[in-house]
């Protein structure tokens, strides 16, 4: 393959000079003629544009129903305007504070406990010298990432059930089995811990790759100067990871309002709702299950806006501190 490319290359550079002379300047062509000659390129774009228009732009227009009393018969345009009524009724509902703080807490705990783990993992993996051993450890650490959310939730229910293995291990220390899944106090711990178990290994890939690009001479020089292992990890490896950390951190903050609600919904039981109800599960239940379309759309829009604001704020703060930005 490589050879072919190179051959092609040599030939084409010769030809290129000819092309330059023979090619008529583009600007003189009419627009119609341009379209006619390049219609294939536009044809290539057409399916993607249509699909994005239908499934991304039409829903954006549909957000209008957040400000209306939508009913199917009257359609989006025909329904009556209600202004900010749905937002007001959400913000003043007794559930609001609970749901909002559940959302924030769940993702903040996830971030505080979950963010450092992949970094530490990468630093630890970086100290394993034998490539074959390192590869095998990585193979195992990445594996849970490929388990589906449903299976993960199923495993959690199995392991934490009153007759399950975790209670069997804890039995000597407790009075009777703990019903983990029906106690809101345990929900956040379960959610965050299982998230780390599933995702930390895979998230470390980026950091491992960044470390593998570190100049080994830095380490040699530091060692000659008498730096200990921990000092080298802190002053060299950790510094290498900083820019990557900044970008991932901004992204994580931007995603705070979108906590893995698909997992939260699966882990929800009637008993743990005081801790497990987050904005998106609420939108799903009120909007889709109960058919309260406008209210659901309004709550969803509220969520999106808070997420965007958080993204912009974090980006600005990190830029000031670090000089790294997302956009």
């Amino acid at each position: 393959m490589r050879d072919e490319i190179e051959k092609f290359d040599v030939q084409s550079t010769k030809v290129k000079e000819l092309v330059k002379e023979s090619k008529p300047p583009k600007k003189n062509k009419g627009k119609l003629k341009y379209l006619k000659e390049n219609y294939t390129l536009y044809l290539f774009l057409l399916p993607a544009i249509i699909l994005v228009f239908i499934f991304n732009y039409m829903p954006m227009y549909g957000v209008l129903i957040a400000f209306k009393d939508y009913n199917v018969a009257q359609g989006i345009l025909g329904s009556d305007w209600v202004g900010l009524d749905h937002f007001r009724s959400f913000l003043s509902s007794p559930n609001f504070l609970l749901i909002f703080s559940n959302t924030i807490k769940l993702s903040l705990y996830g971030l505080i406990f979950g963010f450092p783990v992949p970094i530490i993992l990468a630093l630890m993996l970086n100290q394993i010298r034998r490539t074959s051993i390192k590869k095998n450890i990585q193979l195992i650490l990445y594996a849970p990432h490929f388990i589906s959310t449903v299976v993960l939730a199923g495993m959690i229910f199995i392991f934490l059930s009153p007759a399950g293995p975790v209670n069997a291990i804890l039995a000597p220390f407790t009075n009777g089995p703990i019903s983990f899944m029906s106690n809101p106090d345990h929900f956040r711990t379960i959610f965050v811990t299982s998230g780390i178990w599933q995702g930390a290994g895979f998230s470390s890939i980026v950091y491992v790759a960044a470390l593998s690009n570190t100049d080994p001479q830095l380490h040699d020089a530091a060692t000659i100067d008498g730096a200990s292992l921990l000092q080298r990890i802190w002053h060299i490896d950790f510094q290498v990871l900083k820019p990557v950390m900044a970008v991932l951190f901004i992204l994580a903050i931007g995603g705070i309002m979108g906590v893995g609600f698909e997992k939260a919904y699966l882990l929800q039981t009637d008993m743990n709702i005081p801790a497990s109800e987050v904005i998106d599960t609420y939108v799903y239940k009120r909007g889709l299950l109960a058919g309260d379309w406008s209210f659901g759309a309004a709550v969803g829009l509220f969520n999106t806006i808070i997420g965007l604001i958080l993204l912009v704020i974090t980006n600005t703060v990190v830029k000031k501190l670090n000089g790294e930005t997302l956009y």
Partner: protein
Amino acid sequence: MAANHLINNSKADRFILLLNKIILSLLVLIIIVPLIYVVLGSFLQPSILVTRGLSLNPDHWTLDGYIRIFQDGSIVRGFFNSLFYAGSFTLVSVTFTVLAGYSLSIKDLVGGKAIIIFFLFAMFFNGGMIPTYLVVRSLGLVNTPWALILPGSIGIWNIILCRTFFRGLPNELKEAARIDGASDFRIFISIILPLSKPIIFVIALFAFIGQWNSYFNAMIYLDDRSLYPLQLVLREILVQNEVPQGMIADQLARAEMQRMAEMIKYSSIVVSSLPLMVMYPFFQKYFEKGVMVGSLK
């Protein structure tokens, strides 16, 4: 590397390296023990696993869970439905994403800038769950496979990745082919595609696995049980605790039914996760590559 090895001989450093190995081994155990437990539980009766641990008594071992899964249709049908949805989604997604990425990689494409802005805007803003649902419903896609295949099939980030990749290919290749009279279509098929196999493979892999493992869209768009993908069937068994009656109805005693249902949970986890778990080591380097191209700006 070798030099690095020589200089690590202070006592404190060696202690830290040892500690590092011990902690990593523990972490590997934490990952692997729950997985092994589920696999064992699918062959051993789970209640025995909890009360007596790993029993070597052959009477306790059984393939009953698996036999029941394959006798009852739901999981098998879900498996093939998922295969169809994930396969079609991947095909649609990869084809249209790569085509769009190619056109946008042409530097002097008239209107290219506007089209990119059109895509980028859709990446940062979205209508949300309810308006999207209403669009899908108004198109009559609810309760059809299209509801899982079309929405979200155009990964905008992937279009940008492809565009960047195509821009990196030597322009002379295209120019030369054009002199030889090749059309845009011909250039794309015979020159660009063969050079882009790795990036296409990575995009396809992530699209397939994402769709295979997802349940949420299926849950909101599909009512018809015969259309259920594997993850929805699993959700009934594992989360809602509703093991299909066909799998356990022959058991008369309630306790026995309960015991069987418990075992079927373990077996269905294994059956549904096995394909990915077996394939994944072979694709590991592609996953790493995928994460890396995804993280580069």
